[in-house]
């Protein structure tokens, strides 16, 4: 049992390592934006001709841009305007902002490639298995696996600590302090 749990803790930890590191680092970026200065985005702009017969709706326009013009990603936002449509096709590392004019049949596509720290932040906010794009669903699946891993890492960690006799006294003090602090705050916040 002990060896099994020890191995499980190691394997689950190693599999989740990069994702957990991503969560820590991206939280640091979100929590301490002032440390890093404004992010620099690489921006390119192109115009694409799409006939108004094809662009009958924002979704139809997005489909055309994805199928015929290489715009990869998930349709995140979209709406009709007085003159056409605006929409955003994006994944964690980039976004294409599209402004389409029905009158001219021209879609202006502004592509912004996000720097690594913004991509990490976007990955942090990924989740769910209901997305249209397989990459977003894959991230969602990885989030689920790592979440289960985190819970099991915590529980197996408690067991492994307890098996270290020399660490029981110090460990008990730390655990009791931590639980007293966190659980009492959670209760206070929940009942407020």
């Amino acid at each position, binding site marked *: 049992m002990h060896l099994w749990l020890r191995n499980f803790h190691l394997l689950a930890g190693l599999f989740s*390592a990069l994702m*957990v590191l991503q969560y820590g680092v991206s939280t640091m970026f979100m929590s301490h934006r002032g440390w890093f200065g404004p992010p620099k985005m690489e921006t390119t702009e192109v115009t694409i001709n799409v006939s108004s017969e094809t662009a009958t709706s924002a979704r139809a326009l997005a489909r055309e841009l994805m199928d015929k013009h290489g715009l990869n990603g998930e349709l995140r936002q979209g709406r009709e305007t007085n003159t056409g449509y605006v929409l955003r096709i994006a994944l964690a*590392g980039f976004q294409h902002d599209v402004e389409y004019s029905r009158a001219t049949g021209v879609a202006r596509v502004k592509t912004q490639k996000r720097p690594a720290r913004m*991509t990490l932040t976007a990955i942090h906010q*990924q*989740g769910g298995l209901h997305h249209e794009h397989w*990459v977003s669903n894959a991230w969602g699946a990885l989030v689920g696996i790592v979440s289960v891993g985190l819970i099991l890492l915590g529980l197996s960690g408690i067991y492994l600590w307890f098996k270290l006799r020399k660490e029981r006294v110090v*460990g008990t003090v730390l655990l009791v302090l931590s639980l007293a602090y966190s659980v009492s705050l959670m209760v206070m916040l*929940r009942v*407020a």
Partner: protein
Amino acid sequence: MNYWVKRIHTWFGLLNFTIVLVFGATGLLATFRPAPAERRPPQTTTSDVPFTPSAGVIADKDVAVEIRRKLDIPAAGGNVRRDGDNNLVASFSTPNGLRRVTYLEKENRLRVESRHNNIWQFFNVLHETLPRQAEDGRIRLWGYYTEFSLWSLIGMTLTGFWLWLATRPGFRWAQISFAAGTAVFTLLWIFSR
């Protein structure tokens, strides 16, 4: 050296035990919650509370502070505006859900609308509660804990990695597990850029 790395890894784990479980629960919520269009909004209740701001409290934002204190709202953030009838509306974000308070000045009362997050949504908001400058002490203390956890997560990952390489680098399943996790992350990163 390994002895101290192992102790630090263990201590970080013990100190962050609760919040690691909160993070795990949040991740499960993110994975299995319905798509935005299918989500049911949280239940909302409304109540009225008598209220008159203290003498000398004039500005809307100062009235909002008094409202928060009067109702003991553990606000992680909020905003203040006037509605269509020119009543002051103070909205407070709390781990339990949004609290929208309308100050009906002529009637000396507050109309309090409370949205009630379920326990999973509560954990979700807790996990992202970071404001260490919040006026509410409970939120500030939880914010310190979340801040500590972000550094602990980084520390536990690095110390865990060290312990593996220092004690069992040849363990084949560990190598496979690390390679698999890294490969999945790397591939998804590439496809996301």
